[in-house]
């Protein structure tokens, strides 16, 4: 699983907690770090042969960054890697994100165990 913080959001405590929880459940988690661009994350997903890409955005820039990420993945030929989004995502943006190709959206308040379960589910599903 590739975990990423896109854009200028500098808060990484949450994503590190999630990374740890996923690793404890047996997953290999590649954490790409803070302030990543969509191109950087997409290339990482390609090189790591990711089963899922999970991005966290607390800065509100998700409507720009997430579609850009999906576009990059597609142009690299790996548009079939599911993308999951977390962070501060207003409900009204969910339909647009889903339409853009996001597999699921899990905001704060999602219990950690549910997050791990759902991500694992998505990661194990067949890539189209």
């Amino acid at each position: 699983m590739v975990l990423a913080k896109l854009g200028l959001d500098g808060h990484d405590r949450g994503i590190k907690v999630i990374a740890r929880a996923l690793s404890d459940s047996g997953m290999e988690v590649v954490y790409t770090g803070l302030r990543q661009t969509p191109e950087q994350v997409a290339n990482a997903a390609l090189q790591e042969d990711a089963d899922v890409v999970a991005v966290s955005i607390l800065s509100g820039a998700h409507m720009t960054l997430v579609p850009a990420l999906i576009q990059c993945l597609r142009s690299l030929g790996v548009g079939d890697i599911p993308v999951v989004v977390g962070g501060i995502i207003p409900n009204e943006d969910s339909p647009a994100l889903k339409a853009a190709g996001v597999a699921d959206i899990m905001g704060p308040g999602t219990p950690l165990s549910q997050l791990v379960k759902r991500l694992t589910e998505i990661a194990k599903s067949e890539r189209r």
Partner: protein
Amino acid sequence: MCESSEELASQITQRLLPVLASKRSHVVGVTGAPGVGKSTLIDKLVEEERERERSVAVLAVDPSSFFTGGAVLGDRSRMNRQSVDPFVYIRSFGTSGDLGGLSRPVLDAIKILRAFGKDMIIVETTGVGQNEVEVASFVHTTVVVTMPSLGDELQLLEAGVPEIGDVFVLNKADLSGAEVSHSELREMVRLNFEGKRWQPPIIETIGTKGEGVVQLADRIDDHFRFLLASGLVAEKERKALREEVYQLLKASLVSLAKEKVYEGSVKGIVADGGNPYVIARLILESLSCGAQEVHGTQTK
């Protein structure tokens, strides 16, 4: 693909053999204790190698949990800006179950990247003693990264580590204690490499600022040139092949032995108060007999 099955890995390796015969990459191992700044340094080294118009691959190995098999692979986070360069390939690996430092997929990745013609393949491992020694068997040049001593002088003299270093790096050289650590390193190199053909250089670097990286790249190149000129490259590669065969055998034998114990072929013998020496010998004998049957050389 090589990660998922040994059979597949073997097939892929077979197909690559003719290509590999004509390709040579410089395989560089970078090892050192957690936190010394390896990933940051590698990020700058990759940048420098790209300046020298070399294609680079980085295989970043982080330990997986023995219990869950999972891992958080964070080395990439310090060099991910390189991802967008088409001549740089970075891949993270856990150690999934192998108690040693390098798992089979990493060794396969090295072969594949060589076949693709990468000029330099950097293998980063977190040294915890044994792991560092192991990496040295599979690379041409071993770079050992340390940082100014946090009080424990003997850390640098950990058994096995000094002997395998080809290039020593004192990173975070701006921290206090750097001068003392540098002299300790110098002394250790003198003791361990007296009279040897290659005298490992000690380079001071500040990874975060990129200082000392040009010298590091130069010394790594020097070492490879030395290996080529002295004919040691072939010897190292032969040793690496032997070591890899040994690893594969060890893994197969261990799983075979585990099968025997669990499936109860030596049923009733693995009981409370048993003699482990006797039990082990019995399992070994049953494995040898099995092997002889397979080869049709059953002795009467």
